[in-house]
């Protein structure tokens, strides 16, 4: 019993923390953006208040809506909870992280996206299918880029399991990896595109002609919308956690070392706060691009990821350092 509890404790802690903190992260980013734009902002707790408000309302569902429409928010939410459990956030050796490697993780994110797109098309409104199509356009371009981002660290540690990769990177002594820097830049670009952040989509807009993600959720209300909003916040959390796990995992608790959990949690919180502020800065200094420029943006992300991999092959995994042989000066 005791061993069983110790085995699952980091997992439970990680998942519960991520679930509870996801709206807080969203609120923190919005607050940072407000500060950067000289507004006072609505406070970091606003997403929780929105969720509470939505849960108190009565759901309105279109008459022609099928069961898929009701099911989709919960499927999306379930996918995100599983994803957030798979990514090692406070300990490298969480039980569920063995359930799926990075490729399955990308598949999990795709499953949630497919259900959302289908649900958006289900009711048959123009905006729903418009948003779904745009989302799928972006997804088709973002997914290969995301996979390529994963391949560089996977090649480094020789495994596609996130736990192994993170443990490898966290334990390695510090050295400069240009390939990882490239992969990180590509990952940030994919993160922006996949989470409907500014260069691609404006999370604050309700102008139908420009929105992508919001257009898909227009038909939802009350508890369904609350679940979707929470899933959306969780998705951002998943991406943040992946980014932290792959590129700055320092401070994460090693396998079995559950005394380090409080410190790891603290380190994670600091990293999340910094990353959220960074995202807000990034969003404030950039302008939304036209939707037809988005393929260019994501092609650049793909390019950076591939370059990272090529550089890893060419420079970092190459022959051992040659002994210096100085030729006589010409």
């Amino acid at each position, binding site marked *: 019993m005791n061993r069983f509890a110790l085995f699952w404790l980091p997992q439970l802690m990680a998942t519960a923390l991520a679930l509870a903190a996801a709206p807080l992260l969203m609120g923190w980013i919005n607050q940072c953006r407000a500060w950067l734009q000289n507004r006072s902002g609505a406070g970091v707790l606003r997403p929780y208040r929105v969720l509470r408000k939505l849960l108190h309302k009565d759901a309105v569902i279109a008459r022609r809506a099928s069961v898929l429409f009701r099911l989709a928010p919960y499927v999306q939410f379930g996918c995100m909870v599983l994803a957030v459990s798979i990514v090692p956030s406070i300990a490298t050796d969480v039980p569920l992280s063995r359930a799926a490697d990075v490729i399955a993780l990308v598949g999990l994110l795709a499953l949630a996206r497919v259900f959302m797109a289908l649900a958006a098309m289900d009711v048959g409104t123009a905006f729903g299918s418009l948003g779904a199509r745009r989302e799928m356009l972006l997804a088709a371009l973002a997914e290969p880029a995301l996979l390529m981002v994963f391949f560089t660290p996977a090649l480094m540690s020789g495994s596609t399991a996130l736990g192994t990769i993170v443990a490898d990177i966290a334990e390695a002594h510090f050295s400069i990896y240009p390939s990882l*820097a490239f992969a990180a830049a590509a990952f940030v670009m994919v993160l922006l595109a996949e989470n409907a952040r500014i260069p691609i989509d404006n999370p604050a807009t309700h102008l139908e002609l420009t929105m992508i993600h919001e257009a898909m959720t227009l038909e939802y209300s009350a508890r369904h919308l609350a679940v979707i909003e929470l899933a959306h916040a969780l998705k951002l959390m998943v991406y943040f956690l992946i980014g932290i796990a792959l590129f700055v995992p320092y401070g994460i608790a090693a396998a079995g070392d559950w005394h380090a959990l409080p410190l790891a949690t603290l380190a994670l919180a600091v990293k999340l706060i910094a990353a959220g502020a960074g995202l807000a800065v990034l969003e404030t200094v950039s302008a939304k691009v036209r939707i037809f420029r988005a393929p260019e943006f994501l092609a650049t992300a793909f*390019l950076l990821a591939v*370059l990272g991999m090529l550089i890893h092959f060419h*420079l970092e995994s190459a*022959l051992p350092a040659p002994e*210096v042989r100085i030729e006589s000066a010409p």
Partner: protein
Amino acid sequence: MTLTQQLINLFASLMLLIAFAMLSQRRVQSLIYLFAAQGAVLALNTVVVAAHTGQKHLYFSAALTLLMKVILLPWILHRLIRRLAIRWDVETLINIPTTMLVGIVLVVFAFNLTIPIVALAGTITRSTLGIAMGSVLLAFLMLITRRKAVPQVIGFLAMENGLFFAATSATYGMPMVVELGIALDVLVGTLIFGIFFFHIRETFDSLDIHHLERLKER
């Protein structure tokens, strides 16, 4: 890997990144900034190699690179585009994603091409030779895909950067006389190109070099 080698790898990756950024950059002014940045990376890389190998002449060539490619040439180009009033010019590029994919293929090709050379070379910088080759090919690609005169000249200068980088990686730089000669050539070349720009614009009212294809003798 030693710190020196890590730094050299870092600079090499930056070279490649800047080469790709130039390939996809639309604004003429940003292109010049990128060119200056590439020169700065090149100078830093040369200094690191010089410090590691103790080759004195590399310090001189680093200083020369800094003077020419980070200060003088960008200054001349900035002045040129101001005088030509194309400072905010935005060039329409056809299909950037495709160009970038072609660029990746070129880089893979360059990496493969240099494997036998790398196997023979004994320099600490030998593994960056593939990247130097890639930068040269990417600059070539930029020369092909650009229509306006000024970006083409910047592509030409970027190619020279790549060649210089290749020389540093393969054999710790060229002899001083050759380097000085090339530096002078590049400087004079840019000045002559500057005069050409004005002539091209006077004749065709535009800097689009496709007009040159219709030149005929009467």
